[in-house]
């Protein structure tokens, strides 16, 4: 576990869920937004589910594949490395978050850069990559719009594939307006 960046809110040390939730559920705009988002997602899901007669069997099969893969990572990670290497890639191995972040920082520096764009990744969120890069003087900018909204708001993602789902439009709008124009290349 990396030490959290002092300017970033952390998961650890946040108020307990029931206390944090008490404030969130009192936010009427947020409730309205989440209702809208939830219905949109459910309608899309229902449409996709309706296309397949055996979607539950497919879900069970997918779960079995994931469980099997996780239980046999020693085999599959080495196979992945072999295939990536054969395709011309390079796989870095890290024991923990600090080592992973150090490898990324080293790659950015080796490229002679102090600014980097990155794709959405929950793993790098958990390893605190952006904060670790900042500590090394490297400015990381999210390319995924949802992740960027979270980053510009100095917030944390509240959902794995809908990161800013507990943000509300006015808040995001303000934070984007405040920081985006200042980030032009020098």
């Amino acid at each position, binding site marked *: 576990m990396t030490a959290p960046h002092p300017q970033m809110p952390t998961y650890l040390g946040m108020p307990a*869920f*029931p206390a944090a*939730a*008490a404030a969130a*559920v*009192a936010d009427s705009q947020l*409730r309205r937004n989440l*209702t809208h988002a939830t*219905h949109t997602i*459910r309608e899309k899901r229902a449409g996709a589910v309706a296309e397949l007669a055996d979607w539950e069997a497919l879900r069970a099969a997918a779960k079995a594949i994931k469980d099997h893969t996780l239980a046999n990572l020693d085999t599959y990670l080495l196979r992945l490395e072999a295939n990536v290497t054969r395709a011309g890639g390079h796989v870095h191995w890290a024991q923990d978050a600090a080592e992973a972040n150090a490898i990324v920082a080293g790659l950015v520096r080796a490229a002679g850069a102090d600014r980097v764009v990155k794709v959405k990744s929950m793993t790098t969120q958990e390893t605190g990559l952006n904060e670790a890069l900042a500590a090394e003087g490297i400015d990381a900018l999210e390319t995924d719009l949802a992740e960027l909204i979270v980053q510009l708001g100095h917030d944390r993602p509240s959902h794995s594939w809908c990161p800013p789902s507990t943000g509300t439009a006015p808040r995001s709008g303000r934070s984007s307006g405040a920081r985006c124009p200042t980030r032009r290349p020098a």
Partner: protein
Amino acid sequence: MRIGLFVTCLTDTLFPATGQAVVAVLERLGHQVEFPAAQTCCGQMHFNTGYRREAMPMARGFTAAFAGFEAVVTPSASCASMVREYFPVLAAEAGDDRLAQAVAELAPRTWELSVFLADVLEVTDVGAYFPHRVTYHPSCHSLRMLRVGDAPLRLLRAVRGLDLADLPDAESCCGFGGTFSVKNPDVSAAICADKVTAVRQSGAEVVCAADNSCLMHIGGALRRQRSGVTTMHLAEILAATENTGRR
């Protein structure tokens, strides 16, 4: 058929009329219903809250109290799920072969009321009369765990006089979740607010379910809104006839 009524602790203590309704429906269909007085809570509350060891005596007590019945019928999809799905887990975890054997014999004969009526007895018209607009809330355990399917709806459609209203977003949880409602009261109430909005949109006079726990939660919100919409367990609707008043 000789049937044991598993009333559940919540129905026994807070909604005894539901237990009486189950007996009325089953006896109307010509069955003999007995109430083994040694029965207790099934231990679901303990199990779901992480007190698995504390749930063990209740699993053992259940198998002892209901051994010998051809069928055990309960007005709770939630408690039926506990017996059918989690008693085997408890017995296996405890390495208790005797309990595992007793559960293997009894759990498959333990039925939630609507499944017992519609799928086991294959009766959908139980002779009920209930001239009201009713909507049905599919509780999480009935929907996602016990998978009762449309058994409750088939039963409701066969009730004379009943006008069955669609419930918007029916498959959403009501927010009760057992001890979740105690540990996370604000979120629980927020989820319930959406459920109650849907119930009122349905235009129903009565919302029913296969679980009194959900109805207790939904009913609390409906009453505080002075909505005029009441909650009734499915069993009480199925027990109603021309000769019974609505509560």
